[in-house]
């Protein structure tokens, strides 16, 4: 089933690329960006091998927490529902959620963001190739590998669970309008934040800045977004017990997301058709709007624009 779903996803992607040249061009441009992201990300992870454990911990936790947050928010705001493997299309088939989920999850990794995230996440194993003796190095790298796999799973599950949870909402036009507004707001405020931080950083000393980054990393490390990524750092900074706690907590997060996603999948496999409206008809008399414009063709168009 896993192999079947993965091959289906690949086939759907290649067909949609071959169908239109513009998609192919976008894929190529996206591919270049992805390569750049991989080179930067993996390069940074390898470079952090040379930094002391505390700095490597803070930087990787913050970076990967941001990536995980991106996996959570971007599909909601920008891409809407991933339509290549919409669960509704499996509704007629004799499959239940548990059989589909491993394949669907792996298929979610196929594509530029998935590949880039996976490569950079796995390169963090090199960051943590440290510690005393062969056993120490193996333990650190093993922890980093487990953490990376859990982290990638968290990314994929967060995006799946939220998109299918909000799928009905995401399909509405009103939400897409609101999302566009929200993105503009976020972009604008991100610019302002960067400005504010930069101006503060100029006046603040290095130590103050380093303290700020550390606080941010500690906070992010206890959120579901940063939890798995903070496991190897805890081990490397000499807190094996903390590493175990974080590992168990991230396992808990992955498990909870898995169950939530299974529930939603089971529902959408058995009710792929939206309920045909809940019987609330649009109020017939938009009296005010109708009276606002003259009863001409142009008036009707203006009224329609206002109504939406």
């Amino acid at each position, binding site marked *: 089933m896993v192999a079947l779903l993965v091959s289906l996803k690949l086939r*759907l992607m290649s067909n949609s690329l071959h169908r239109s040249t513009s998609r192919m061009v976008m894929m190529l441009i996206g591919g270049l960006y992805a390569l750049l992201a991989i080179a930067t990300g993996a390069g940074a992870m390898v470079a952090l091998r040379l930094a002391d454990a505390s700095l490597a911990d803070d930087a990787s936790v913050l970076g990967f927490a941001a990536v995980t947050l991106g996996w959570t928010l971007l599909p909601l705001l920008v891409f809407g529902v991933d339509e290549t493997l919409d669960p509704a299309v499996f509704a007629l088939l004799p499959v239940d959620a548990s059989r589909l989920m491993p394949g669907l999850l792996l298929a979610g990794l196929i594509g530029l963001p998935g590949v880039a995230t996976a490569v950079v996440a796995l390169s963090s194993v090199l960051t943590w190739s440290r510690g005393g003796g062969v056993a120490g190095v193996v333990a650190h790298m093993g922890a980093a590998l487990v953490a990376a796999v859990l982290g990638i799973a968290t990314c994929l599950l967060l995006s799946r669970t939220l998109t299918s949870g909000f799928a009905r909402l995401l399909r509405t036009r009103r939400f897409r309008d609101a999302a566009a507004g929200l993105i503009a707001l976020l972009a604008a405020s991100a610019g302002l934040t960067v400005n504010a931080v930069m101006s503060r950083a100029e006046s603040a000393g290095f130590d103050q800045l380093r303290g700020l980054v550390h606080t941010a990393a500690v906070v992010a490390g206890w959120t579901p977004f940063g939890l798995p990524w903070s496991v190897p750092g805890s081990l490397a900074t000499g807190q094996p017990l903390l590493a175990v706690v974080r590992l168990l907590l991230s396992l808990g997060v992955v498990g909870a997301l898995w169950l939530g996603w299974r529930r939603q999948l089971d529902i959408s496999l058995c009710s*792929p*058709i939206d309920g045909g409206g809940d019987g609330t008809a649009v109020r017939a008399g938009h009296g005010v709007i109708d009276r606002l414009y003259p009863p001409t063709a142009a008036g009707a168009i203006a009224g329609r624009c206002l109504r939406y």
Partner: protein
Amino acid sequence: MRPDATAGPAAGGSAPALSLRGLTKSFGTKVAVDRLDLDVAAGRMFGLVGPNGAGKTTTLSMATGLLRPDAGTATVLGRDVWADPAAAKALMGVLPDGLRVFDRLSGRELLTYTGRLRGVPEQDMVQRVDALLSALGLADDAATLVVDYSAGMRKKIGLACALVHAPRLVLLDEPLEAVDPVSGEVIRAILRDYVAGGGTVVLSSHVMELVEHLCDDVAVVADGRVVAAGSVEQVAGGQSLQQRFLDLIGVRAVDEGTLAWLRSSSR
């Protein structure tokens, strides 16, 4: 594509292929299907007719595991659909009305992947896919993406997907809508052959002549309930099915004058 050899008419005995008991579904305050009972005997061509909004599609959706009923049971070949939807879906083939498919696949790929997901043995696959594509006149368009298909071609590839795993029961929502006359005749022949081989067909339609000529049994649904059911002869009762249907539903005549402005002379 005939049903599996093991699935002769005798296999089910007199047990119905599809049995609906007290099915109920409301959307908000509107009751779409109201305590509906229906039995479809195995090895029969069964027509479900009714006016727009009578609850045909809702009923078929609840029988095929696509819409959870508020109350009541649906049993397919002795298996409770809502106790184990996946197992029940394995037993039937369904042509739904406007459900999404993988439309970025070519016709041949869609049929092959549907077969694989339904567990059709790989050694039978090419032969079955070729047979269905050529029978339905889609062989020339097998490499075209389904998203580029016309409405009639989508119906035909949907029908092929419903038949590829050789189920003993198929449920088809408006199978001949938007299909050209030649393909329509081919589909009718395929369905007749399928029933002759022991399979059971349930189809919904607005077209009384079609149901009258094609089906063995018929049920008339109105306002979410079955108002008449039985063999076509029984239900028609000596009239044409169309006339009997209009009598059962109660015709609402258009008031003289309400649409008078439609006449070209009035302007």
